[in-house]
């Protein structure tokens, strides 16, 4: 009977999860940056240098 | 001014400029000779192996040398502030595209003649045996390369890191054309009849039609400010 290579199966699903999850985290991160103004943009808005 | 006359005007301008400066042709010639040396150094020891990879090497030389020329096809206009002149061409900008395309075809044709001559002389390749078929392959393949190369050349003239972006965009898109011409050249140089590469020729025709039509339709868009 052929070997099962569960290690590779796990690796594949983990890599997929990391890639898709990572992209999702990037989207969430971008959303957060847009919603709350960053310190730099706040300073610029208040006219300070 | 009719489409044909405007096209011819563009081609003639580029030919005249190149004839005066000889920049691109010289660079291409020296690059091809250099490639020849490198191929001989790395593969020359094993004559059989060299003969086996010759079609690929041939087209690699053409492509690399052509990249030099294609990437620069709009640099002249951009560097010398002539871009607006292109924009002001009356009527359909398609004439500019076709004109540049023909100019690039001439350039690549020249590269191919040089490389084929060098390979025939120094690598003992029997080109005559493959002949009228090889000419057809050359024509169809070069048209495809020039069609996309002209389009992307116009685009990348205005982009940061043009020298990086142009080959990155062009080469993956050209994979089908490359496969077709390398495989066809391989078969023809091995003495096979033209009919045996029929499917590759059909692919080249399809690719050429797609690229030229896409180019004609979208070139205007690239030329805008």
């Amino acid at each position, binding site marked *: 009977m052929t070997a099962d290579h569960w290690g590779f199966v796990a690796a594949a699903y983990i890599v997929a999860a990391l890639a898709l999850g990572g992209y999702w985290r990037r989207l969430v991160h971008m959303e957060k940056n847009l919603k709350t103004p960053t310190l730099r943009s706040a300073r610029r808005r208040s006219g300070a240098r | 001014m009719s489409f044909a006359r405007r096209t011819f005007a563009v081609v003639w301008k580029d030919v005249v400029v190149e004839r005066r400066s000889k920049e691109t042709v010289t660079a291409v010639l020296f690059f091809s000779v250099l490639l020849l040396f490198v191929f001989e150094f790395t593969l020359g020891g094993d004559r059989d192996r060299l003969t086996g990879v010759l079609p690929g090497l041939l087209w690699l030389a053409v492509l690399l040398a052509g990249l030099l020329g294609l990437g620069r096809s709009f640099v002249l206009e951009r560097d010398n502030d002539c871009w607006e002149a292109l924009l002001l061409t009356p009527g359909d900008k398609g004439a500019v595209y076709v004109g540049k395309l023909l100019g690039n075809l001439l350039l690549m044709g020249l590269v191919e003649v040089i490389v084929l001559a060098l390979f025939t002389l120094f690598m003992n390749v029997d080109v005559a045996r493959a002949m009228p078929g090889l000419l057809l392959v050359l024509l169809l393949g070069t048209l495809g390369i020039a069609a996309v190369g002209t389009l992307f050349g116009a685009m990348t003239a205005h*982009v940061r890191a043009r020298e990086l972006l142009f080959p990155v965009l062009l080469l993956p898109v050209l*994979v089908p054309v490359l496969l077709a011409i390398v495989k066809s050249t391989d078969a023809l140089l091995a003495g096979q009849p033209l009919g045996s590469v029929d499917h590759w020729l059909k*692919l080249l025709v399809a690719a050429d039609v797609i690229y030229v039509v896409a180019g004609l339709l979208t070139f205007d868009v690239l030329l805008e400010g």
Partner: protein
Amino acid sequence: MTRWLGIVALVAVVAGLVMSFGVAPRELTQGNVQRIMYVHVPAVWVAYLAFFVVLGASVAYLWSREPGADRAAHAAAEVGVVFLGVNIATGAIWGKPTWGTWWTWDARLTSVAVVFVIFIGYLLVRRMTDDPERGARFAAVVGIVGALNVPLVHFSVYWWRTLHQPPTFMKPGPSAAPASIRAALLVNFAALLLLGAYFIAKRYTLLRAEQEAAA
């Protein structure tokens, strides 16, 4: 609205995992390593659908100059590249125990790799053009040429690998597959499709917010 899509997608992904590991049987010839196919194959289907969206949105943008079309193309291209990356990576991980090598220049892998690089180029064009409106136009042209090129890539690579050369490897994935395997594939496809749609929607919204903030 988008949030609901995300939740549904998550549920579907869980369902897909249940199918992959609970319902689908141990494959006869390959063993359990075949289960990688349940993420590998749907990923490329979703990616190619996304690139089809890029084609449509790019044409629409050049025609109408609607910024929404440009945003849709951009979002779809990003998501397509991510899913194609997943396909390539899981494919390599499947290939190592099955074929003994991480990579092989067979028709499918090579085609996918070329398409991957084409659309990386698409994203690069946007990044390297200073004027965003110009970047949108350039990207649209690259998107159209790139997407139209996909069938050419697949034909040429397939002919290169199969003509005058007997097929050396089994086709990856089930061929005359039992119903449970096909069902698992379908559920996972739906799951990844929903996930991809959620990502595209979210990215689209973010792009619009970015553009409005810059205005």
